């Protein structure tokens, strides 16, 4: 009887279990929702990895861009360093027009300044010792202005340029030999 009883209990439990299972079995909606959930997880994971891949790509691109910028900056610095070493042009006595042989070097400065609009410069105008100091200040300014006008015509913004005339006050070479005076009649492009 005891065994029978045990069996009955087990049977009832089984039946209950089956009954329970039957009543809470997945509906179609539930299956769909489960599928969606799975899909969402998968999608999130895919998104996450895509984002990760993308971030990596962007980082790589940024790094590349930074490298490029560095390279360009270095190139610009190199270019500037070259220009800084080619920053003097000479004038004839009592004349402020630019001699043709200096156009090519001025063009390089102009191109650089157009490409680097944040770069500002001072154009210094200088004269030789002949004439009076005050007249040479005026002449020096006119020399500076003829360089300024050339740059402006090449597209350099006027806001990048300041002209300062030193007249005969800062000779490059002391003395009054023809050589010294020719060296002193000059315009100098100074990068700030």
């Amino acid at each position, binding site marked *: 009887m005891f065994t029978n009883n045990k069996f009955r209990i087990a049977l009832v439990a089984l039946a209950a279990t089956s009954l329970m299972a039957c009543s809470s079995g997945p509906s179609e909606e539930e299956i769909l929702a489960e599928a969606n959930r799975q899909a969402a997880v998968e999608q999130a994971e895919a998104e996450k990895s895509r984002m990760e891949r993308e971030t990596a790509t962007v980082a790589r691109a940024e790094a590349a861009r930074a490298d490029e910028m560095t390279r360009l900056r270095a190139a610009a610095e190199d270019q500037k360093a070259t220009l800084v070493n080619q920053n003097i042009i000479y004038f004839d006595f009592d004349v402020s027009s630019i001699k043709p042989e200096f156009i090519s070097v001025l063009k390089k400065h102009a191109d650089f300044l157009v490409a680097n609009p944040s770069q500002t410069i001072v154009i210094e105008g200088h004269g030789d*010792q002949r004439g*009076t*100091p005050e007249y040479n*200040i005026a002449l020096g300014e*006119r020399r500076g202005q003829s360089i300024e006008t050339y740059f402006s015509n090449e597209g350099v913004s006027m806001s990048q340029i300041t002209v*300062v005339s*030193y007249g005969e*006050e800062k000779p490059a070479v002391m003395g*009054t030999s023809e050589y010294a005076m020719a060296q002193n009649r000059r315009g100098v492009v100074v990068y700030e």
Partner: protein
Amino acid sequence: MSTMKRLVRVVPTKLMLLMLCAIGLAAHSQWAKAQSNLRIVITEGMNNARPIAVVPFKWDGASILPESLADVIGNNLQRSGKFSPVSLSNMPQFPSSDTEMDYSAWAQKGIDTVLTGSISAVQNGQYLVKFELIDVLRAQLTGGESKTLIDGNLVMAKDHIIVSREKIILAEDFRQYAHIISDIAYEALTGEKGAFLTRIAYIVVRDRDTDPLPYQLVIADYDGANETRLLSSPEPLMSPSWSPDGNKLAYVSFEGKRPQIFIQDIYTSQRTRITNFPGINSSPAFSPDGTKLVMVLSKDGNPEIYVMDLATKELERITQNRAIDTEPEWTPDGKSIVYTSERGGRPQIYEVNLATKRSKRITFDGEMNLGAAITPDNKHLIVVNRTQGDYHIARQDRETGDMLVLTKTFLDESPSIAPNGSMIIYSTLHEGQQVLSLVSLDGRFKALLPATDGQVKSPSWSPFLL
């Protein structure tokens, strides 16, 4: 006289005080002794000068006097170009006053003017200085005693004594008093006011490779003595110009890496920035009444002449054209300005009437004329004239327009005229160095002021300081 006495004492005291304050500070804008001592070397023109004997002043004291009055007076008179002081060995005697004079002994030597004097100590470190200027020929004629009618009575007079004065002075005033005696003697003998008690301002440029502050604004007595540095700068200084009261200088400084006009008090060293316009700020010059400053500004495109009212800082534009206009100088009446303009192609001098603003060209001789100055009597224009490539100081008669080249030196510039109109100081190139040079208005007398250190340029002669 009293104004000058005050001035004389104020200078050294303030100077020493400021020098003490300056110790440990940067050299900027401090009073300090400059080192480029100028001396005057006469190069031409003594044969036209009139002989005069400046007898060493008698001194009975045991101490050494701070300065030989006779030496300073003799040098002054010689540098005027109008007198040739007699050497000690050519003096027949050393009288200290008219009473000790042997007129015929001087007359025999061909010396018809004698300055005698004596110095004696009085209390408190003061000295009594007496001097007499004696006309030897007149004295010979009258025997030292002429008869003159005064109030209807015939009295004995000493009209051969041109000047007789005495004064009590301090030890530090010896040099200044020697200048005053020189001025008195010069005026008595020439009829023209002496300019020995004046100063010059100029720019010294030291070696730019070794000196961090190579540009210096310096003032000195007219003869180069008592050099005082007003300002030292890493960047150029230009165009000093005196105020008519002799207390201030206007000048251009590039200390801000661009030109700006300043006015500086020479006694307090205090300075004010007057302009900071874009472009040129140059050539300042005080009006004769001291209320205005004429200057050159290129803020509107190219160099033009402007007049600034110093009280209101208001600007009035005087010239208007596309050529260079620069180097403005006032006429003595303050009603016109002469300036350099190249509107005719090459730089020439023009004159503009400030009321009508109408300009007319006034120089025509030579390839160029620049840097004009006008004599105090308004009779002559002094310019830098370029003829056949040579730059010389020239004088043009304001009425006839006749021009006379005065100098033979090389690359002359920046002429400035003594307040009595007798002498021009200018900058020139001598043995490869920029030095100051003097030429008399008639061109007969010439002297160099070589400096021991640096290039010296842009001289400006002060007004009368007495």
